[in-house]
């Protein structure tokens, strides 16, 4: 036995020592561009004066111009001037270094990003060395800090005129003049009414929870499950799109295709779909905004015309990040994302899946539907709902998640069993129909494995999370299945 371990140990060590740099690493040939800044960027394509521009040069101007903005944001955030020299000419960078010096001495930092650019190329010189842009309606989001306390966060929309020179292969800013600015007024949009009653369920396939659109994706399995859901009297499923697994800023189009196929399956089963975006996302920093906006843009534009789509849930339980990331960071991210998705899709309602009723009023003005999750005592559900209704007024209320685990094994001997679970759902359905509430339960299946990212690695939590299903791991109905719907 011991010898086996020793041999194993030696072999692992030997294998490690044998693994060296492969040739591609050795030569540093695989340097890939990392996307760090992706604001909406739309060229006004009316012809420019001077030489006719080609797409090659136009893209280079775009890349360097955006990089100039990016290094400026970083410079003002950190009060350092690294990178400035690459994107501003010698005379222009003086303006930045002076302000940075002033801010350093006063301990002022500015966190900023731009969300939108609408540039027009005004002029491109005959020798291709000079370009003039007018960048209209540059939407900038800024947070001004003095001595590390936030003074003010605001959004502004400005128009800039820029002269760029091609120096050493970089398009560098020579002049930058703000020609117009208005403080962004709050974008008030009419809420999108949604009046159909939602009777739904949070759905993951039994074999691939939290990784529904990975390699195990099978449209047939999902179609079968959707038929089970449909036949049980439900009309809606809530699905999740994981931010990083979907490629962050550059969305994995294969996975997006699988989401589309899933929506097709839902349409065939006559189910509506709530899509929850940004699952497992947790950065929220201003410097990350443009990346998340590009992510949302790709997904929303791809899916917004699908007939099965019911609405967008921007993020699942973001209030749980308040403590680690700061409530202000999280809510300001959510707010701009809500506004962004509204401009991308003016048809489908948006909501946020708050983890409890007391969080549910946050950002209520920005949302079309108010969603909260409820895993507490059912006896207090009605009073919670009534309180909420009085606070949110007309907007429809959704109970986005509720359920009970039927796990009563070793780690939780006092827990509820399958009969308790059935009783819970019976009671829940009763309350839901009495309150005439939109509701989506958690979840269709018991799962065999739970990824660590969901509830951590502690076995009592893992085990508990596995048994929320109406169907067991073999797919047989548990007693609660009778009460999956109020009908």
């Amino acid at each position, binding site marked *: 036995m011991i010898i086996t371990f020793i041999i194993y140990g030696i072999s692992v060590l030997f294998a490690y020592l044998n693994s060296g740099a492969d040739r591609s690493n050795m030569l540093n040939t695989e340097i890939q561009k990392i996307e760090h800044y992706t604001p909406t960027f739309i060229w006004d394509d009316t012809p420019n004066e001077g030489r006719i521009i080609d797409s090659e040069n136009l893209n280079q101007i775009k890349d360097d111009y955006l990089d100039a903005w990016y290094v400026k944001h970083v410079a003002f955030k950190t009060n350092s001037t690294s990178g400035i020299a690459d994107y501003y000419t010698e005379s222009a960078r003086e303006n930045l270094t002076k302000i940075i010096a002033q801010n350093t001495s006063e301990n*002022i930092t500015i966190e900023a990003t731009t969300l939108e650019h609408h540039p027009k190329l005004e002029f491109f010189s005959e020798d291709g060395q000079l370009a003039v842009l007018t960048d209209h309606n540059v939407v900038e989001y800024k947070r001004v800090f*003095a001595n590390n306390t936030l003074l003010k966060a605001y959004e502004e929309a400005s128009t800039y005129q820029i*002269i760029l020179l091609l120096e050493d292969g970089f398009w560098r800013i020579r002049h930058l003049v703000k020609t117009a*600015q208005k403080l962004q007024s709050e974008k008030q949009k009419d809420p999108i009414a949604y009046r159909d009653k939602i009777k739904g369920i949070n759905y993951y396939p039994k074999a691939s929870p939290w990784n529904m659109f990975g390699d195990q994706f099978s449209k047939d399995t999902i179609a079968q499950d959707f038929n089970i859901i449909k036949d049980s009297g439900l009309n809606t499923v809530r699905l999740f799109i994981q931010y990083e697994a979907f490629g962050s800023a550059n969305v994995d189009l294969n996975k997006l295709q699988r989401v589309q196929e899933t929506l097709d399956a839902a349409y065939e089963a006559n189910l509506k779909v709530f899509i929850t975006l940004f699952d497992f996302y947790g950065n929220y920093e201003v410097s990350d905004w443009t990346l998340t906006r590009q992510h949302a843009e790709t997904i929303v534009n791809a899916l917004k015309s699908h007939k099965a789509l019911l609405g967008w849930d921007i993020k699942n339980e973001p209030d749980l990040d308040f403590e680690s990331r700061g409530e202000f960071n999280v809510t300001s991210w959510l707010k701009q994302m809500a506004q962004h998705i509204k401009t991308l899709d003016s048809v489908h309602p948006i909501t946020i899946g708050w983890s409890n009723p007391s969080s549910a009023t946050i950002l209520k003005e920005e949302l079309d539907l108010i969603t909260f999750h409820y895993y507490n005592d059912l006896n207090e559900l009605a009073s919670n709902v009534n309180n909420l209704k009085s606070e949110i007024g007309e907007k429809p209320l959704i109970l986005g998640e509720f359920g009970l685990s039927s796990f009563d094994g070793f780690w939780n001997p006092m827990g509820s069993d399958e009969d308790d679970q059935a009783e819970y759902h019976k009671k829940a359905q009763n309350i839901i129909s009495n309150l005439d509430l939109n509701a989506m339960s958690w979840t269709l299946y018991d799962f065999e494995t739970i990824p660590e990212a969901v509830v951590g690695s502690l076995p009592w939590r893992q085990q508990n999370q596995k048994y929320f299903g109406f169907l067991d791991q073999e797919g047989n109905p548990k007693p609660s299945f009778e009460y999956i719907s109020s009908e």
Partner: protein
Amino acid sequence: MTFKHIYIFFFLMVVFNNPSENNNSTTQNSIVLKTSKTAFVAGASIFLEFSVSKPIEANLICTNSYGTTVIKSQTETSILLFKIPELFCSKSGILNWELLTDTSTLNGQLYISPSDLASSIENYIGPPSIEAGGADFAMLVSIPTDPFDNPLTDGTSVQCSEQFLSTITTESIEVRNMIAYNTIYSKQESGRLLVASECLGLNSKEHTIMVSPAIPSQFTIQADRPHDFADGNQITSFETSVIKDKNNNVVSDGTYVQFYIETHDHRMLQTSGLTVNGIAKAQMIHPDRQSSWIVKAFIEGIADSNEIRLKYQPVISDFQFSVSNNGRTVTVGPFKSFMNQLIPDGLEVTLRLSLNNTSILQELKASKDGYVSFTLQEDIVPKDYYDIEIEAAGIKKQVTHVSVW
């Protein structure tokens, strides 16, 4: 009905036309902006003054084209005073300010215009070399700036002067989108075009655009040779006419001209030359036997010349050779030229030795003092009876069954 429309129009005007200065009066707070001026010239100091009912401390966020900073107030009893930092006063464009107090925020905009003094003109000219003929052009882009490095306002006029040969012209252009640009077309002639600009009394330095001749047009060639004999010694020179572009400008020095010579037996010879003052010269040694050439010159892919034909007369009609020293020495000559003079050294003579139609030896030698002598070494040519062939100036002579001992 019309009255109603006008009423609605004015009502909407009032609702939507909400300039930033008005924001101040709408605040419930007792802080009121005293400074009414909103337009400044770059470089002037700017103070923002607010009247307050009781002394408070406040911050002013200040944003211009390049960045944002926060200014602390200089508080007096009933006045809140902010001095906008110099670097914000000196950059043109919109300056946005926002007053932060514990209870409320006020905001507004100032417009800083560039001063109407030009202190530098940056000129960008390109491409630096253009083609004569009036179709090609270069571009002058002028960026006049004020003492604070702000581009001047749109509409400022810039004089763009150009000098070419004996003409000097001046054109007035206007700054638009921070730059003024002018397209400078080439003329029919080639030469140096000098460009300069002037703005508000400030002059730029001189810039040069080279106007180079356009592509060459067709040309002619001629040949020059000391005599027309194929002596393999003298040199035939070729020369082009003065090569010009379509506008009669002599092409740039160094234009590469290639001469192709086709001989009567369809062999190609090549020589080349570069132009100097439009003329390219090239040379070719005379053939060593009777021949006739067709010569044509090309500037590859652009222009070509006429064809000229040259004939070369034979200089040698016959020659003698003798075998001596037991057949081991073959002496060829004397070779006599067109005046019976001994031919200049260097005529090529070939000896071919064969045994029963199998080639044993081939040797090439150049003539010296009118003769060529071949020595057959014993280790290469064993004792036997050989056939010998001699070739010179295109004439072949044979002798069979020579005893080599």
